[in-house]
Every structure is written in structure tokens, then in C-alpha cells.
């Protein structure tokens, strides 16, 4: 009985998700939605969040006619906001980039939007990590 109840709840949840207005962005839509400045608000893995450290990350994605640029400001720990810049590319829903010193981002991300102001970036290499960003501009 209990199992049936759980299955019912799960079924209803799946249906609800399917019927909800969850945005299924096309690449063009995703590109447009990505433009703007985002603040990291949550990050997690399956096992642990990153302990006691204060991590502040702001990413501004800037669209361009030939190249797309980004400005990344980060404060990891007790430091100041350190700025990195470079270019980014969106292919389907795969986001990758290169820093201005020529080095590639440390990972490639699958990007999705839960709403217009909430972006999820999930790593594709190594242990899965999921980062949630909120639009601030």
C-alpha cells in the first residue's frame, strides 16, 4: 500500500512537470536568455557542498556579432573580487569557453533554464556538479 502511494505521488509529480510551463528552450532562445549577468546562488554535488568557504561568483555573458565575451568576477574564500575575461560558445545546450590567457575553461557545461532568471550549469567532465545562477541584470 505504501509502495503504491509512493508510485502515485511520483506519477503525479512527473505529470505535473510535463504539464507545467517549464521552458524548453531552443538554442536561439537559450542564447538570448543567457545574455546578461548572473550570480552563483547554489552549487552542489551528490555528496557535499563546498564547506565553510564564502564563494562569490558573478558571470556576465555578453553577446556579439562575431564572438561572445564573458566577464567573470569571483571571490573564493576571504579574498577580493578577481576578474577574468574571455569568450564563450553555446552549441545546442553545451556551453564552453576560453579565458583571455588562452586556456580553456576547466569544464564544459550543459545549460538549462528553469525560468527566465534561473540558470542551471551542469558539468560534463568528471564528477557531476550542478551550479545554479540567478539573473541579476
Amino acid at each position, binding site marked *: 500500500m505504501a509502495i503504491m502511494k509512493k508510485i502515485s505521488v511520483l506519477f503525479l509529480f512527473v505529470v505535473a512537470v510535463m504539464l507545467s510551463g517549464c521552458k524548453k528552450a531552443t538554442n536561439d532562445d537559450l542564447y538570448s536568455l543567457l545574455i546578461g549577468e548572473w550570480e552563483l546562488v547554489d552549487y552542489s554535488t551528490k555528496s557535499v557542498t*563546498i564547506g565553510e*568557504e564564502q564563494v562569490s561568483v558573478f558571470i556576465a555573458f555578453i553577446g556579439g556579432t562575431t564572438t561572445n565575451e564573458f566577464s567573470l568576477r569571483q571571490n573564493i574564500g576571504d579574498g577580493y573580487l578577481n576578474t577574468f575575461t574571455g569568450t564563450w560558445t553555446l552549441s545546442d545546450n553545451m556551453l564552453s569557453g576560453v579565458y583571455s590567457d588562452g586556456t580553456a575553461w576547466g569544464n564544459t557545461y550543459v545549460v538549462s533554464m528553469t525560468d527566465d532568471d534561473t540558470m542551471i550549469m551542469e558539468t560534463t567532465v568528471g564528477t557531476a556538479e550542478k551550479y545554479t545562477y540567478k539573473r541579476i541584470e
Partner: protein
Amino acid sequence: MNKRIFISLIAFFLITGCTADIDYESNDSGSASEKIVNTKSSTADQNALLIKLTSPLNDDIQCKLESLGVKSISPVFTSFKGKEEMEIKYGLDLWYKVTISDHDIEKLASDLSLIDEISTVEYNNKAAKASDCIVYPYDGNPITSLATKSTTTFDDPYLSDQWNLKNLGNASIATTAYKGGDVNVYDVWNSLTTGDPSIVVAIVDEGVKYNHPDLQGNMWVNSKEYNGKKGVDDDGNGFVDDIYGYNFVSNGDITWSKTGDSGHGTHCAGIVSAVNNNGVGISSVAGGSGNNDGVRIMSCQVFDGNEGGDSYTIAKAIKYAADMGASIISCSFGYKGGAYLSDGSYKSANGVEMDAIDYFEATKNNSVIDGGIAVFASGNDGDPYATYPGAMSDIISVSAFGPDYLPTYYTNYGPGCNIVAPGGEAYLAPWTTHKALILSTVPCELYDDNYGYMQGTSMACPHVSGIVALGLSYAKKIGKTFTVKKFKELVVTSANDFDKRMIGTKEYYNNAHSPLELKNYMKKMGTGSIDAWLLMMKIEGVPCLLAAAGDRQWLDISPYFGTSSVNLTYTGIDISDKDKAAIGLSEDPYIEYGRLYVYPTKIGSAKLTVHAIGGGSQLGGDDSIGGMAISQEISIVVRSFKSTSGGWL
């Protein structure tokens, strides 16, 4: 209180005919010979000794002293209203100066050592200025071919001759001049801070010419005395007319142009805080931006003509600096090289100075740190160790480099030297000008000029004092606070690699000095060369190190220990089991070639503390001379990946 005590004690001896018995058999406060803690130097005061009592002065002790022929007894330190508790805590209330006339000083020392209530008997020995005290007046011909104006807004006309602030590698200064061999302060001025008038640096030295046109605006001013009556102790601090500081040698007005004076104090003051951007003369490390915003200079005069420099005078001056608001003492002097070769030997032989320094370091005079910072010159004897007091392991001792960014021929190096800064150097080719030395303010009464060149670790010391003052100014601006210990660690780790050029020999123009074998200086110039910008960045905060889970990796720790981190001696790493577990460390971390080895297996974060020696390969201690113990807490954030650029993505 003190003047009254002093007068009344003298009167007491004159009036009373008290007698006292000194028990030559029983002596409970230590062996008599051990109580005499130093030997009399040839320049020691012949008429006075310094004694420390085991308890406050009383009639019984007075009688005993009188029976030994003591002419007068007076407290070394002037008590400061509101600081009585601290004075007692650091034992300053127990120090007295006893004077005699027509008496054998060594016999008196011996006799005093037999008195139970006396714990210490010190000869009042003298320290010496850490410079040859030769001044070359400014030649009035600033370098104009290499404009520096474009990178700073300061309009001081001689700034282009100050390689110590911006070294452009100009061959007319020295054919071996090294671009970037400076204190890296321009960017600090341009974007962070130029000083703060609430930060006071006491120049413990010859008197500072407080009415110098390039110093006057940045002098500390005791407003009660300034607005008071001449000849009256308007603020009741025990010192009359101490407007810009005090002359502790003559107990009177600050002086700078007697026979025997060199302008040493005025020169050091100008390096710290000559007024910037005033269209006059030189720029300085922390002299503000021309808007009355430089750090302030307090003149604590301990050398006066051919007098002064003794422990008694120095100790009094240091306490005054603490009581009257200084956060930094800049001390370009020291005892003869080799006079002391361990912290213990200095501390026991110069208790009066040590107590004063401890008191200063414990006195909070600004909102940033919980005490004061003492900076000393390492000495000019070319010895492979620093002179004391600077050589004390917890005091910043500064060695010197020239415009070639190499050790100078005169600088001390090795144990006890914590960091290196520009000191200037003569005899570097082409030696057609004196611009390879350090240009700063001098008294025109001595040289018919307001500016002149000097060299020495005396000049290196105020560079660090000025940078410490800039750091405190910036920390205040951004609302950061530190302990004294932590701030000193930040200072000595804000250093650039100074060992990479220790190859070959360094030669002098016309063989005016024998060549230096540079390998002899390798790993012996402290943590490296002071960098003002690095200090400011450390004050802002040091970012965590990023690591990737599952990788054996070596993390660059130069953000914590400076770019000379590869040259430091590391003494250990502390990490708790909890932190180990947080990032899944199955192997202990260690340092190799200045990099931190870690093998994290879990995503998370951890803190660990790396211990190192700030200068040299061994720590200073009671039985040794050596470097400062420095510790840096390092935070590591482990993710599943890391980018080589250090970016989050």
C-alpha cells in the same frame, strides 16, 4: 609624578642620613654576577647604571642605594596617565637610572648586584646609526629623459631620481640598474592609498627637521603643546613643549644641526612621509597625495650631535612613541655587529629596551591592529647576521639592495635579516652622480640644500616602515583588522624573489670596493624584497587555492608567501583530521620547491596552516639568532575540476 619623585629623591638623599645594611652573605634574587647582564662598552655611560627592582621603590631600597654612594635615582620611564596598569604589566615601573660621581662604575655595578631588591644591573651602552652618515647634497639635475609622470599624478620634481620608488633601469644611475628593482608602490598610490594621517610613524633617530618644507605638512603635532605656552607641560605628559616629538638626549627641543649630526633622522623621515604631490622636492612612500593625507612623522630624538644612542634614551623614546600615538617605530640603528648572537643574549643584556619594545608592541594606537610594529635596520657591517635589536626573531629587520636589485656591499645578511629594501649604494659604475644612493630630505643647515643622498640599511628600514604605514592606512580604509603578529607575517611574506639573481660577482667602479660573491647571499636576504602592492593585496585577502579532486597536484603558495616562496624554509603543516576528511586527504600534504602537495579525493574545502621561517634557515630563539616564525592559514577548495587560469568556470 616622575619629576616630583626625581626631585624629592635627590632631596631625600641630601637631607636624610639614612643608613642601610646590605647583606653581602645572603642574596635571594639570583647570583650577584648574573644580575649584571651586560659588559661595559667603551662608549657606555660612565656615570650611570640602569637597574630593575624586584618591587616598587621604597625607603629601604633608597637607603641601600645611598649607602653605596648613589647620587640620584630616577625612574627610567615617565608614567603616562591611564597607562599605569600596562606599565606595571611590562615592568616599566621597576626600571631606574642611578647616577654617581667620582665613583668606579664597575664597582658600583658589583655592589648593586648584591642588593636583594635589584634583579638586573645594566650598563647604559650605546647603539650606532646604521649608515655611514655621509650625505651627498642633491645635484639639482633631475632625470628628465625617462618620464615617470605618466604613471603617477605626483608633481614632485625629484621623483624621477627616486629609483627606490620606481626603478626604470636607467643606466645613468648605474650601468647595472635593474628595471623593477624598487618597492612597487606606484600602483598602490594610483589606485589604493597614499597614506592616512591617523597613522603615526615615530622616527627614533637624530632629530627630524620638522620645519623642512617637504616634511612640515606631514609632521605629527601634539596640539595641546602646539597651542600651549612655551616652557609649560601643557598636556601634562611629563615632557615640556613636545610639539613634534621630543629630544630625549637633552630633554629639550628637537635639534638636527649640531656638530656630530648628519641629518640621518630627517633623511629617514623623508623616505617614510615627505609630502607628496606638493610640487616640491621628493615623493615618499606614504606621504599622501597632496591633500594633507600623508601618514604622520613623530620625531623621537635619541641621537643629538655626538651624544645619545644609549639604552636609557632609546627605551624612553620608544615608550613615548607608544604613549603618544605612534603605530610604527622606525629604528635605523643597532648595536655593534656580533655584540649579541642570540635573542636570549640581547634580551637579557638590554632588558630596559626590550621591555620598552614589548610595551610598544602591546599598545594599540589605531583601529587596524592591536599594537605597534617595530622596524629596525639590519646593520652595515657586511656581517653574515643582523645586528640587534632588529635581529630579534619577532622584530622586522631590513637589509639593503641597490639600484641593481642586488645586495649592497655594506648590508648585513643571513640570520636575523627578515626582508630587503632599497638602501642605495655608492661606487656603482658609472659613478658620475650619486643617484644610486637614496635621495631624501636633509637639513639645509648642514648641507646648504634641503635634499641629499645617503646609503645604508638605515635607508632601507624606513622604506619598510613606510610600507607598513601604507598597509595600515589601506586596512583602515577597507575596514580590515589584524593582530600585530598577523600583520608582521603579512609584511614579511609580501616579498618578491630576491635569490634568482644571486649568480656571479658584483663589481664596483674602479675597484672602489672588492667584488661581492653573490652566491654568498643566496637564501640569506630574508624572505625577499618588500613589495607594497603585494602587501595591499594580502590585506584585501588571499583567495583560496583551487584544487581538483582525484589529482595529485602541487599548488602554488606564492599568494600566501610571496614569489620567493620557493626559497623559504618550511617547518611544518598543521591540518586537522576533520579537514583531512573534508577533502578526502589520504596522504599528508607537504611543501616541495615552494609548492604545496595535496591529493584530495573528495569535493569540499579544508584549511591548513603552513609554518615557515621568515628569513634564514633557522628560527631565532634564546640560544640562537634567526628568522621570524611565520604561519599562513591556507584554504583549499576542491572541485571535480580546476581551470589552469584559476577561474571558476
